[in-house]
């Protein structure tokens, strides 16, 4: 680990400038990913710019009906917040399905979004990895692939984004508020993370020094019935093999009037399942159509030899989640709250 300096910024623009001006500087949120990476030698920042005391720690209702989540809101506080539990329970469920209580107490909203892949080779500095050291090759192509991508990967990198929270935010059409040294802009969550292509070292479209200050959720009545399902190797405290966040609203005749589906554990970014949504919208809500939607989304799947099982797993997880949110949407009110999330083990 390099020796480095620790600083506290005065305000958001100042923090952005401190990092933008120094290629070896990094923002420090809860540190649960960055401190880990410093110990492993995966990251070696010379200057840590601590942003956790900046006033970005509120969850507040927006006048237009949405909710604004400050970048520093801790994962545990966000999951427990009444506005989130009542109106976006899928977000609480996704958060509570991740990490452990002690980690959620540290982890921040922005840090969670920008956490890096858990690919074992990325974390092991003795092995080649294009994401950690561009041009060295991808060890996963011939290696352990259980937790790797089946959609949107490239020959240069087959890693997945590990965040549960980001999958729920993707289904919720969140906007990410980004501040650089001069201006503020909004990035739709679906466009925040990238596919690896030929530059897997870039996880997102953000520039060095771009500070996430908040995440905004739009008003979305059907989110009350949204659910998160996470399939993993252990009952708790494990990353997703596959996860699904979904929301559905029904017309007066019981057909699907609107739907949102996002997948985790399958791609380099939280995967918005637009094909499945397209296949379902404006038609009857039947088991056959749920299965057809899942098939449509995974038609383009290109699994690796070590994770072919994930295609069928993702299909059944999508179908099961759609069945569940359909039942919730039909049942009307009174089934909200993060209690009833689907959990599966393998």
């Amino acid at each position, binding site marked *: *680990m390099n020796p480095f300096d620790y600083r506290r910024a005065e305000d958001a623009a100042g923090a952005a400038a401190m990092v933008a001006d120094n290629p070896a500087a990094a923002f420090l949120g809860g540190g649960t990913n960055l401190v880990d990476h410093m110990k492993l030698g995966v990251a070696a920042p010379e200057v840590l710019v601590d942003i956790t005391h900046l006033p970005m720690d509120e969850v507040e209702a927006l006048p237009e009906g949405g909710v604004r989540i400050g970048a520093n809101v801790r994962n545990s506080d966000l999951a427990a917040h009444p506005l989130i539990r009542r109106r976006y329970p899928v977000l609480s469920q996704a958060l509570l399905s991740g990490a452990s*209580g002690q980690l959620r*107490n540290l982890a921040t909203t922005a840090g969670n979004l920008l956490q890096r892949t858990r690919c074992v080779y990325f974390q092991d500095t003795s092995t080649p990895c294009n994401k950690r050291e561009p041009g060295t090759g991808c060890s996963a192509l011939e290696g352990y692939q259980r937790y790797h991508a089946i959609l949107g990967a490239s020959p240069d990198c087959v890693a997945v984004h590990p965040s549960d929270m980001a999958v729920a935010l993707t289904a919720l059409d969140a906007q990410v508020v980004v501040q650089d040294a001069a201006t503020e802009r909004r990035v739709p969550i679906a466009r925040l993370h990238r596919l690896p292509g030929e530059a897997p070292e870039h996880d997102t479209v953000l520039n060095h020094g771009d500070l996430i200050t908040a995440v905004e959720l739009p008003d979305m009545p059907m989110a009350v019935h949204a659910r998160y399902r996470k399939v993993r190797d252990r009952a*708790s405290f494990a990353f997703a093999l596959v996860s699904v966040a979904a929301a559905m609203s029904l017309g007066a005749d019981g057909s699907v009037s609107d739907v949102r589906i996002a997948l985790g554990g399958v791609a380099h970014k939280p995967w918005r399942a637009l094909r499945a949504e397209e296949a379902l919208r404006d038609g009857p809500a039947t088991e056959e159509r749920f299965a057809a939607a899942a098939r449509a989304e995974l038609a383009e799947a290109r699994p690796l030899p070590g994770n072919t099982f994930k295609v069928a797993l993702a299909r059944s997880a999508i179908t099961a989640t759609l069945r569940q949110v359909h039942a919730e949407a039909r049942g009307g009110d009174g089934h909200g709250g993060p209690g009833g999330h689907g959990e599966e083990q393998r």
Partner: protein
Amino acid sequence: MRVEFTVNGHAVAADDVWPGESLLFVLRERLGLPGSKNACEQGECGSCTVYLDDVTVCACLVAAGQAAGRRVRTVEGLAAQPARAGAGAAGADGGVGEAGGIGADGRAGGAAVAAGPGSALGARGDTAAGGAAGADTGQRDPDAERLSPVQRAFLEEGAVQCGFCTPGLLVQAHDLVARTVGAGGPVPGDAHIREALAGNLCRCTGYQAIVAAVRRAAEREHARLAGQERP
């Protein structure tokens, strides 16, 4: 850099801290508080669990600089006060007896490494044995009485094998009791207890006794608080 914060109610300062150091390293190596254990250093095992202000965290992933100006409470600071809501704050405000402080002569910390499995309870080395004996024979033991309800319950249920996971479990269980019965709620069910302890791994897999101990602590605290309410 110099980092000043409070540990178990005492103001402390650590000098020559390298900003990338973890809070766990500062506690163990610079402040002589080895109760919090260092196992995975990756957030996976929970043996380094401490209170940071009012919530429990993995000290191995907290950058030392981030502890500046904050209240830390370690397993050494659990004894001599009952678990209750806002327990982290209570620890900082004082009321930490000799078993809990780092003040007196550093004995709490020192003994915790030297005295074998019982010391995992984080109080004085002789407390574990004394407490266990007291429980068996029904004798009053002043040291045992100073232990927090979770510490006592761990002894009584035999929830300690090698003891490596115990300090982290005690802090996490202490927080669970404080947030449930300590906040006026019911005794948590086993599923709730297991979920709250999901981030604490016991390599000796003594989970059944651990869950039983936490349940016992919560039940006793519940009864104690109910008793206080009666005129």
